[in-house]
C-alpha cells in the first residue's frame, strides 16, 4: 500500500493529508484512517460518547486509503482507544496493515483487566486529618528511634553490643579534629561581633573593663555551645543522614539486619557516642577562641590592660557557667546525632529521598537545638544558676 519510491525520482511524491474519522452507530463502529501519516500530524479524535456508553460494541478499522505511516500513527490510535473499556468494546485490528495491527495490539490492554478505580478526591477535613496523622506517625517514629538508641546503649553497658570500637574511633576522628578549623573560624568571628557590640555600649558609660564579664560569660555559657551545635548540624548531622540514608537505599541496612546485626548498634551508636565525646571538647575549644578574641578587642582597641581583663574574666567565670556551657554543648551534639541518624534510617529508597533526609536532618537538628537552648536557658535562669 505504500507508494513505490522510485530511486531516480528527484521530486518526493506529494503527501496526502492524514485524515481520520469515527463512524457507525449502535454496536458496530469504525475508525477510518487515510492519507499519509508521516511526521507531524493531527491527533485522532476521542471515541464518541455514543460508543463509550454502549454496553457491548465492536470496533473495526478501515485503512484502505492509508498510504504510508510511521510510529506516530499507532501512538495516535492508542491514545484515542485507551479510553475504551476492553470488557465492553471488542477491538478488531484486522482492518489495519499487519505491522500496524501487531504494534497496536502489543500496547492495547488485554482481556478484561478491570478499569482502574479512581479514588474520589478527599475533602478539606480528610486532608487535614491525614496531615495530622502523618505528624503523629513521625512523632511515633522519633520516639521509637530514641527508645531503640537507649536500648542499644544498655546493651553496650552490659557488654552485649554489636558496636565495633574501630567504628567509634573513626567517627570521633571525622567529627572532632576535622571540625576544628570551621569551629575556630565561626567562633572567632562571632566572638569579634560580641566583643565589639558590648564594647561600643559599655564605652558610653566608661565601663570598658566590663567587656571581660560580658564576653566571657556570654561565650562560655551560651554562644560556644550554640555555635558548635550549628556547625555540627551542617557538617556532621547532614553527613550522618546521607551516609545511613544511602546505605538504606542500597539495601546495606537490610543486609546488616538479616545477618542478625542490630543497625542501631552498628550504625547509630558509634555516631551518637562520637558526638557525645566530641561535643563538649569542641565547646571548650570554641569558648577559648571566643575569649581570646574578646581579650584582643578589649586590649588592642579599647585600652583595657591585659591583666585587668584576665582578672575580670576569672572573677566572672564561675563553675556553674562552665558546667552549663558544657552541658549545653553535649545536649546540642546529641540532638544533632539523633536527628541525623533518625532521618537516615527513615529515609526512602531513592536518591531524592536521601537528599530529603539530609535536608530534614539539618533542619530538625537546628530546630531542636533552638528549642533546647530556650528551654535550658529558662530553666537555669529560674533556678538562679
Amino acid at each position, binding site marked *: *500500500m*505504500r507508494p513505490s519510491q522510485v530511486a531516480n525520482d528527484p521530486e518526493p511524491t506529494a503527501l496526502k493529508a492524514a485524515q481520520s474519522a469515527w463512524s457507525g452507530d449502535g454496536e458496530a463502529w469504525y475508525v477510518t484512517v487515510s492519507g499519509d501519516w508521516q511526521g507531524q500530524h493531527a491527533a485522532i479524535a476521542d471515541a464518541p460518547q455514543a460508543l463509550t456508553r454502549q454496553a457491548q460494541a465492536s470496533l473495526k478499522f478501515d485503512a484502505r486509503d492509508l498510504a504510508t*505511516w510511521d510510529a506516530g500513527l499507532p501512538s495516535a490510535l492508542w491514545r484515542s482507544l485507551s479510553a475504551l473499556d476492553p470488557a465492553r468494546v471488542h477491538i478488531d485490528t484486522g482492518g489495519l*496493515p*499487519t*505491522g*500496524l495491527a*501487531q*504494534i497496536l*495490539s*502489543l500496547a492495547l490492554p488485554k482481556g478484561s483487566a478491570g478499569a482502574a478505580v479512581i479514588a474520589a478526591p478527599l475533602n478539606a477535613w480528610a486532608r487535614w486529618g491525614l496531615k495530622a496523622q502523618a505528624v503523629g506517625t513521625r512523632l511515633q517514629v522519633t520516639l521509637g528511634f530514641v527508645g531503640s538508641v537507649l536500648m542499644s546503649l544498655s546493651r553496650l553497658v552490659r557488654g552485649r553490643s*554489636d558496636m*565495633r570500637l574501630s567504628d567509634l574511633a573513626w567517627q570521633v576522628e571525622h567529627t572532632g579534629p576535622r571540625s576544628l578549623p570551621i569551629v575556630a573560624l565561626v567562633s572567632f568571628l562571632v566572638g569579634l561581633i560580641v566583643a565589639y557590640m558590648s564594647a561600643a555600649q559599655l564605652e558610653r558609660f566608661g565601663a570598658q573593663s566590663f567587656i571581660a564579664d560580658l564576653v566571657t560569660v556570654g561565650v562560655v555559657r551560651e554562644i560556644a555551645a550554640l555555635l558548635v551545635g550549628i556547625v555540627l548540624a551542617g557538617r556532621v548531622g547532614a553527613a550522618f543522614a546521607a*551516609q545511613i540514608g*544511602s*546505605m538504606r537505599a*542500597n*539495601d*546495606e541496612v*537490610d*543486609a*546488616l*539486619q*538479616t*545477618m*542478625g*546485626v*542490630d543497625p542501631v548498634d552498628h550504625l547509630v551508636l558509634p555516631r551518637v557516642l562520637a558526638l557525645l565525646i566530641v561535643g563538649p571538647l569542641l565547646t571548650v575549644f570554641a569558648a577559648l577562641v571566643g575569649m581570646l578574641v574578646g581579650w584582643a578587642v578589649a586590649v588592642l582597641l579599647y585600652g583595657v590592660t591585659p591583666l585587668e581583663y584576665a582578672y575580670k574574666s576569672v572573677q566572672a567565670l564561675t563553675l556553674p557557667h562552665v558546667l552549663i556551657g558544657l552541658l549545653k554543648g553535649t545536649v546540642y551534639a546529641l540532638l544533632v546525632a539523633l536527628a541525623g541518624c533518625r532521618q537516615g534510617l527513615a529515609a526512602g529508597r531513592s536518591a531524592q529521598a536521601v537528599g530529603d533526609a539530609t535536608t530534614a536532618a539539618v533542619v530538625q537538628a537546628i530546630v531542636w537545638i533552638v528549642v533546647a537552648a530556650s528551654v535550658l536557658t529558662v530553666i537555669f535562669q529560674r533556678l538562679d544558676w
Partner: protein
Amino acid sequence: MSTSADQRMLLVQVEDLRMAYGDTVIQHNLNFDIRAGEIFVIVGGSGCGKSTLLRHLIGLQPPAKGRVLYGTRNLYESDESTLSALRREFGVTFQAGALWSSMTVGENVMLPLQLFTDLDADARESEARFKLALAGLPDSFDSEPSSLSGGMKKRAAIARAMALNPALLFLDEPSAGLDPISSAHLDELLAHLCRDLGTTVVMVSHELDSIFNVADRLLFLDAESKTMTALGPPRDLQRTAPPRVQAFLRRVDTGGPDTQPSTSLATAEAQP
C-alpha cells in the same frame, strides 16, 4: 509429587500469606513449605512480588496477613533475641549486592565472622579468602565495593552470605547480570552447597536455564490472579502446570520439541 523432597525435614512453613503495599494486594493465599536441603526457586513475572516474598521470609517486612514458621517459631511473633539468633542461620543476598560501601570486599566478608565467631584475625582472613574464591573472586579481597562490576558485587555478596556457613541461603536474582560462564559456575556452586553441605537454598530467579539445572522445586507467582499457581519440580510443571506457567517455562526448554519462542514480534518484520 513423589520427589525425595517430600521425605526431607520441614524447614519453613508459609501459611495463608498475604502481601500488600497499602491497599494494593500483590499476592494472597500463599501456602507452601520449604524442606531442608532443597533448592527452592521462586519465579514469576516482573512486579508479581517475588522479592517482597523473600523479604517476608527473612523477617525484614511483616506480611499483611498470615504466618511464616521456622519449626514451631513464628517469625513475626518472636522476640528480638530469638529473631536475631534465627537470622544468624540465614545467609542473604540482595538484588544489587548491598555490600557495605565503607569497607573493602574482604572486610565485608569478615564482618559477620568478627561479630559472631571466636576466630582470630588470621583465621578470619583465610576463611574470607576461601569464601571469595568459592564465589569466583579470588583476587578481590582488598578491592573497594565501588570498584567491582555489578556481577562481581553479586558474587562478593554471595561470599558474604556464605561467611557463617548458614543453614539457609536466600538469594535474590543471584545470576541476573552474570556472564554465562560465571552463571554456570554459580549453579555449580549452589548445587555443591546443597548436595555436599546440606545447605537449603531459596532463590528468586528469572534464568530458566539455571532453574532447570539446579532447582528441586519451583513456586510460580502469578501477577494476574495474584496468587501461586504452581509448585513442584520444574520438569513436572512443564507438563502439568496451568497454561501460563507452561508458557513461562517453555521459553527455554533445553530438550523439548518447541524450543523456538514464538512471539508476535518474530513475525512483525513483514511490511504492510
